[in-house]
């Protein structure tokens, strides 16, 4: 029997995970842009990941001006706005793997060093500390077989769950997308509209609470429209 795509059922339920990070020092730091470049060339890949993604689980009180730690330091530590702007437009999902991402960062920094007469320096108490993190994944116990079931739970999902399924997922899923979109893809065309809307969410400038609100509203709106 041929099953129409719109009737495909995803056999795997959506398993809600939660997560937390534990931070480790790499023991490496930089006070000027040349030191930064040298360290960037040798830090573990996990450190690059941490400085792009780990900030989401840090306290935030306002909208971040830049969307990764490197760009923030270029602005606040080195007072080099052009560098901060360029680094903030380096998007990890544009690159095949972390080594390609590292190379792009190196290129941006080298270009900036070529342009400047003096190497930008930070004050002693504004050095950049290269960190890495260990991810601990918890089982929330929540399982959803049908996308409609998830709607009422989304507004109360922990920020750790949102991080795991919406941010961390981009490094895990073959499509480099969030877990919700990847799961909906398993239903064929049935939820393509919702999936496209989720794929259109830019996670880089939102807090996790804001992302939770956006994702909840997208699910809610979709099922209201379908009803």
């Amino acid at each position, binding site marked *: 029997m041929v099953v129409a795509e719109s009737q495909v059922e995803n056999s795997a339920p959506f398993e809600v995970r939660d997560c937390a990070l534990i931070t480790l020092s790499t*023991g490496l730091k930089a006070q000027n842009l040349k030191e930064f470049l040298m360290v960037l060339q040798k830090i573990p890949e996990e450190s690059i990941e941490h400085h792009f993604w780990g900030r989401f689980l840090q306290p935030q009180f306002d909208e971040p001006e830049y969307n990764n730690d490197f760009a923030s330091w270029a602005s606040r530590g080195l007072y080099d706005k052009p560098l901060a702007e360029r680094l903030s437009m380096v998007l990890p999902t544009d690159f095949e793997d972390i080594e390609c991402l590292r190379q792009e960062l190196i290129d941006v920094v080298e270009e900036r060093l070529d342009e400047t007469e003096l190497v930008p320096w930070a004050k002693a108490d504004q050095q950049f500390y290269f960190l890495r993190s260990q991810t601990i994944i918890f089982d929330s116990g929540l399982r959803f077989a049908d996308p409609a079931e998830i709607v009422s739970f989304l507004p109360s999902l922990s920020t750790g769950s949102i991080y795991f399924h919406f941010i961390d997922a981009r490094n895990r899923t073959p499509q480099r997308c969030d877990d919700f979109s990847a799961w909906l893809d398993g239903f064929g065309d049935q939820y393509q509209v919702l999936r496209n809307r989720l794929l259109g969410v830019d996670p880089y400038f939102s807090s996790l609470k804001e992302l939770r609100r956006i994702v909840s509203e997208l699910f809610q709106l979709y099922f209201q429209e379908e009803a």
Partner: protein
Amino acid sequence: MMEAATPEQPHDLLERYAAVAGREVIHHLEQLAAPLKGARVVHVNSTREGGGVAEILQKLIPLKRALGIDAVWEVVDGASAFYECTKGFHNALQGLSTSIPEDLLREYEATNARNAERLRKSLETADFVIIHDPQPAALLSHFPDRRRPWVWRCHIDASHPYRPVWKYLRKWIIPYSASIFSLPEFAQPLPHPQYIIAPSIDPLSEKNCDLPAAELRQVHERFGLDPDLPMIIQVSRYDRFKDPLGVIRAYQLAAKLTPLQLVLAGGEASDDPEGMAVLEEVRRAVKGDPRVHVLLLPADAHRTINALQRTADIVVQKSIREGFGLTVAEGMWKGKPVIGGDTGGIRLQIYNHYTGFLVRTPEGAALRVRYLLHRRELREEMGQRARRLVHENFLITRHLREYLALLLGLETNTLGRMQVGA
């Protein structure tokens, strides 16, 4: 050896934490603790009363035990020369150029050797040993055949240590399996993993639990405070790095234009030989001003400190060096904006203009005191944000989660992802 007594059934204790921190937080702790069930984790420090480390251990040990971990707390003891030496370590790690005489270093080593023998059975049977600060750091050298991980936990702002003293201490630290620092800036080049774990406060402790209004009124009478006068408070042991003289100066500057009273509340820690000398300096600086209340409280006056912090309009922690500054989180938990020194762990807690103000001088502190005393609504708004920040980041449940993750990482020999509870 003290097996920390659990005052109530483990389930009840966890439920009480769940009521404050959230059920899912406890669920995470249970998932992390499950693979470590029955493991014997021995913490060692140098004092059972006084100071932030003892306070954290008093609460951490029962919680670990409630989760099925055999947590034990040992304390090293020594003569006054030992504490004189370790106070020198403390000052040197915080950047003070202080040379420590050879005879004190020999006393340090002898005291650690003596304590190693006294604690040998406890430490040899441990699955994990966590050594707090430099005082017991040399214990490890007396266990050359150890097979289980030993972790060194540094609670001190070691961002700019006095090099000769750090070089001496480093040889004791290097053989550890891992070390823990409160901030990335404090980490030092060491040949083992260095975890960054911020300290925490216990929301259920006598120091931080909610108090009835009558109890708050009582502290006014007890200490002769004027209930109609705005009050600022710094709670700290009498230690130069806490800059009590700077706080008095800030009060004097602010009081020229804004009527207020200052409470300096400190206690003694049994491992701090300099406290009385600093207290004398403080009393002299007050010059008999009746609106400055210098209190020397016993180490167990937690409820009194709680009431004083809740009575205050603004909490101050104007340290010039600070490992973390538990009193900052305590004040914030009570919904107070905090004016803190722009240093160490205080920076981790005070988000400038959001949860309080970071200052570098007595003049800066005076300016912010005046500003906040004139802006009641802003004070309350900042206080609410401060409480929320502590709730999400600086409660003991987060601290314990990170400790358990570290132990599990050491147990499974992984620095990568770990999945639990699945």
